[in-house]
């Protein structure tokens, strides 16, 4: 497996490194420059924070980086020594652990001047931010988002919209500056552009063979999550899009002799990403699509920016009911014409893991293709067994091969 030929690296990788370095340098310099740091959650209207001239920092991203560098367990142990359980979300354990840790192998988490938490994704972020706001003695604004069970839900959208205005008042009070709606529209314009380009790139995974897939998306998603609403993100995805099309021209594809397309749910196994992707390449299977990387597909209406933010963020799949999540998975599976699906029962992400056992049966019935669930943790290798995961995947690959005959 280790001698597996991998596709050549993307040229834009250098651009990515530059952007990341700039982002982290900005974060570190924010305090000196008098720019307040706001902690934000991945599925929240960060556009407001950018428009207010603050620096948005994603503790979840810190968790993902620590996980990918295989030190989540070490940070977690520090959090555990304070009484936090190893059953909590791995990202939260990384963040809390780092706050108490004396060593910071992936750099120190940036301290917040204020926290803007949103519970669309999960209850864990809302609690983690609550804990952090006490620890860092920084004010906390919780954007409460009840689950949209039946769409449309005007009550939830109005509640969210009202809170957006409450948040703007909170921001004005915090920064002492009047909020600029012109600036917001500029930010939303960039967000729209970045989302449009990102989804255009993701869509190339439907080509067979494909120049870009899930693992590439995991690598290149940093700007769409953290810099959505900036010109930098737009420039980045323009460059990446051009390169993806170049690759189609020159026939550089993700998997040699691609035979199968796979749907994956949901967050990757960060500490073993390369190992995991090699297994698929070896079986000539390409993970083409996941709910995770497809989460950033906003298209805000600049004529009614606030309403548009409320509508789109409340309708994100993370804030939706069981039935909708199944429909969305089915839709993606059909759009990308997949041959099988993998569901990650991720003990660090309860909202996405709970229900997968039932969903597997429903998806198999609807799609008539092989599907499998594996058990692990997105961050923490103490809850991962290579042998167990391979045992769970093996019958899947056998079934997949059988369908091709």
């Amino acid at each position: 497996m280790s001698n597996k030929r991998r596709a050549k690296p993307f040229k834009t990788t250098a651009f990515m490194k530059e952007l990341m370095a700039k982002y982290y340098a900005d974060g570190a310099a924010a305090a000196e420059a008098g720019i307040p740091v706001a902690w934000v959650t991945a599925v929240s209207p960060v556009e407001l924070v950018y428009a207010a001239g603050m620096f948005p920092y994603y503790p979840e991203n810190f968790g993902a980086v620590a996980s990918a560098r295989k030190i989540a367990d070490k940070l977690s142990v520090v959090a555990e020594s304070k009484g936090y359980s190893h059953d909590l979300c791995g990202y939260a354990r990384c963040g809390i652990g780092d706050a108490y840790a004396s060593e910071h192998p992936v750099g120190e988490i940036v301290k917040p001047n204020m926290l803007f938490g949103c519970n669309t994704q999960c209850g864990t972020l809302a609690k983690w931010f609550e804990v952090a706001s006490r620890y860092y003695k920084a004010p906390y604004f919780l954007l409460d988002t009840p689950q949209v069970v039946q769409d449309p839900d005007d009550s939830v959208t109005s509640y969210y919209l009202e809170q957006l205005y409450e948040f703007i008042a909170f921001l004005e009070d915090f920064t002492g500056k009047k909020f600029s709606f012109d600036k917001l529209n500029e930010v939303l314009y960039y967000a729209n552009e970045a989302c449009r380009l990102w989804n255009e790139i993701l869509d190339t995974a439907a080509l067979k063979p494909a120049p870009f897939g899930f693992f590439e998306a995991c690598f290149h998603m940093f700007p769409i999550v953290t810099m959505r609403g900036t010109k930098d993100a737009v420039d980045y995805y323009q460059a990446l899009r051009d390169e993806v099309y170049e690759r189609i021209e020159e026939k550089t594809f993700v998997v040699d002799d691609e035979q199968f397309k796979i749907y994956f749910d949901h967050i990757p196994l960060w500490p073993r990403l390369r190992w995991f992707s090699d297994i698929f390449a070896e079986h000539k299977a390409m993970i083409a699509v996941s709910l995770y990387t497809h989460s950033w597909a906003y298209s805000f209406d600049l004529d009614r920016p606030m309403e548009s933010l409320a509508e789109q963020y409340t309708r994100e799949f993370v804030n939706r009911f069981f039935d909708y999540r199944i429909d969305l998975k089915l839709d993606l599976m059909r759009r990308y014409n997949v041959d099988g699906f993998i569901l990650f029962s991720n003990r660090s992400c309860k909202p996405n893991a709970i229900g997968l056992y039932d969903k597997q049966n429903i998806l198999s019935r609807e799609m008539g293709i092989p599907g499998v669930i594996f058990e692990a943790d997105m961050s923490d290798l103490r809850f991962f067994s290579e042998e167990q995961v391979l045992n769970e995947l093996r019958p899947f690959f056998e079934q997949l091969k059988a369908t091709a005959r």
Partner: protein
Amino acid sequence: MNTGLNVEALEYFNEVTEDPCREARLWKEKTDGRVIGFLLTDVPEELIHAAGFFPYGISGGKKWLSLSDAHLQTWTCSYIRSSFAMALGGEYDFFDGLVIPQRCDESRMVMGIWKNQRPLALMDNFRPLRQVGRPSANRYFLRELDRFKKGLEGLRGSEITDEELKESIKLYNSNRDLLSRLFDLHRRDPSLISSKELYNIVVASMIIPRDKLNEKLTSLLGTLKPNPESEANGKIKIFISGTFLEPLEIADFIEETGGVVVGDDLKNGSRYFDGNVAEEGDLMQNLVDRQVKKMPSASFDDFANPRSDYLVNTARGNGADGVLLLHLKYCEPENYDYLDMKTALEEAGIPVQKLETEFGQTSLGQLQTRVQAFMEMLGGVDLV
């Protein structure tokens, strides 16, 4: 020793919890009415009752546990797992509806699975507030209550009138008053009724027809005469905090070692009957007000009144010698609060101990040992 105790009334509550579906089934047979189950906590039962339905509060289960394994990971909350297992085992087949208040990730995600496996005529995802500090909260929650009410009206086929709602609110207020009185009496004279019996009555109160509950509680209360001397009876006063007192035997372990439970913030305790609903004016607004003013919990923390402050003040107010944090395994919200609560209590000079519990836990011995160790630290004597 209190000799006038209404043993018969106490026995009744014990029988109810031993066979938790009995009363609701009997009611259904007799009235041909509808039973609506609900998971704890913060469900506005008054509306269910006003629709003429039987609100059935689910306090977890002890049977069929392994049936959940095919649907819920072993690392999900055992309250949800054990409650769902009861449904899978057919225990709740007489339900006409189910309400799940979305209070955490598990309660937010389990309804889809439940609906897929055991569909019922009404399956309501009730979405209480997560923040209460801003004006938007009140307006949203009024709409949410209205949506909830309309769902019940749809099942019944007619509107719930103001008179009906008012009657139900009055009845529930009187239930809560009686339960509060019982807890007050227990605090004044712990020898009247054991801590375990006290919490058993709360669990029973959620699965008994409301008028019958008042009758039984009134009859029990009539025989409880506190001895004014007994306040200084030298017992070690323990405040219990968390989600559930589960198993109820924990209360026995506290008493066996010279302690008594003097207060709690539990779903199957004080949180259930905390605060009344005003009976005049805009009744829906009054229901909102009760929720907004409720004691904080891990899933409902008013930043102006943080849970750790509340805990310190309430434990102190009840003269607690120690606080036992009942930690339901895998409960994320509760775990996030732990360090802050522990630190606040320690800074206030109140000894604190965490006790991990689980629905379906079989090893009572371990729990007993841990409670004993805490009680010994507080100067308790082994009275067994």
